[in-house]
């Protein structure tokens, strides 16, 4: 497995917050999502990985290179979309695009303007007259316009309507389809990224509390609905995020394969129903379980 990005014990300390000891290996050809509550450190991590801010300690390697001596080369191949993209607000979209162009060796202005046309953003409009969503789109379009090999996006679908969100998700999927390029994204679970991400990471209070392939996670975590008395008290004790109610209770298991045999008779008689857990349920259960 070829790695496109690698982080070792990455740490960033602020006076009131610290992102601690993050180690990651991100392969080629996939979409990797970071989820977590507000203030978990998602944006700090994205900034560190894109080398927008220096780390307090630890190391990042991108394309097998280090920012220490190959920063320009790495950044040339990264498309970075910050949460609050900064533009010359009084100047036009076109001016901002021409300003960005010389920073990249493989600039493709045609691709940029095709994308802006698709998003119905005129190049004459001053950036200050764009909505928040349009600014994000402009930033995404810029990231897509210099033949990057790695996209890093911080909440790219926040503030977009469902149609644009779908369009962006589709573009991200196409971006990685060849198997050589990767998307790293920080987002909220309800923003649609959970549908297309192949790897999910949960951040909480500056720590990476969980990382897994999404399919593996969803194969293990299930919500078990059961008729009162259908499960032994011992089995019920193994479930988390319990919802007790008179017409059938339910709880989450983090290891369905271990329970499968015990549950089989109940499933056959209809007294037990197993459903896929949703990613947000799993995240909440993990955060509560800490």
């Amino acid at each position, binding site marked *: 497995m070829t790695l496109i990005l690698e982080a070792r014990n990455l740490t960033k300390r602020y006076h009131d917050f610290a992102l601690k000891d993050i180690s990651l290996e991100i392969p080629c050809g996939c979409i990797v999502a970071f989820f977590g509550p507000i203030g978990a450190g998602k944006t700090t991590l994205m900034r560190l990985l894109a080398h927008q801010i220096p780390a307090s300690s630890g190391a990042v390697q991108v394309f097998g290179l280090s920012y220490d001596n190959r920063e320009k080369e790495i950044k040339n191949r990264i498309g970075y979309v910050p949460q609050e993209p900064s533009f010359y607000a009084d100047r036009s979209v076109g001016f901002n695009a021409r300003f960005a162009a010389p920073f990249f060796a493989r600039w493709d202005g045609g691709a940029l303007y095709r994308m802006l046309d698709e998003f119905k953003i005129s190049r004459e409009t001053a950036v200050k007259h764009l909505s928040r969503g349009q600014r994000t789109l402009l930033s995404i379009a810029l990231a897509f316009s210099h033949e990057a090999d790695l996209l890093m996006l911080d909440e790219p679908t926040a503030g977009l309507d469902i149609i644009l969100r779908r369009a962006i998700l589709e573009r991200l999927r196409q971006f990685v389809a060849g198997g050589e390029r990767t998307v790293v994204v920080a987002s909220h679970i309800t923003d649609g990224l959970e549908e297309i991400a192949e790897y999910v990471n949960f951040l909480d209070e500056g720590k990476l509390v969980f990382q897994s392939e999404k399919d593996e996670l969803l194969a293990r975590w299930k919500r078990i609905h059961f*008729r009162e008395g*259908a499960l032994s008290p011992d089995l019920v004790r193994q479930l988390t995020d319990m919802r007790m*109610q*008179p*017409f*059938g209770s*339910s709880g989450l298991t983090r290891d369905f394969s271990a329970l499968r045999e015990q549950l089989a008779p109940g499933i056959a008689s209809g*007294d037990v*129903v197993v*459903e896929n857990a949703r990613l947000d349920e799993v995240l909440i259960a993990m955060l509560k379980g800490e």
Partner: protein
Amino acid sequence: MFIVLSPSHPDPMYKQVTDQIKNAIASGDLKPDERLPSVRELSEALKISAITIKRAYLDLENEGYIFTRAGMGSFVAGIDRNRLRAEKLAEYRTELSRILATGAKFGISGDDILQLVRQIQED
């Protein structure tokens, strides 16, 4: 009574509720004259709107499965178990036709399926 509602199920919520209450009546889980939970009770427990439960109860009432006494609540009607069984049989017929059609695709005949049923019964 055991009710599980699923947002990804193709049937609307009220239909999922009516079908599962019908099943509870047909299997004897709910007995004739037994009091059903109030609309409010059930809507709170299942975390769906009272309107959905009301709609489900109204359908059940129109089909003769339950009856409602003003101020007292809804109760299971003294319904003919044979009728319920006939309805279930019709459902099984549909389900079996589907299984037979799928089986045909893989060269599994009706006889093969009959044999499987006997094997399962013996286990």
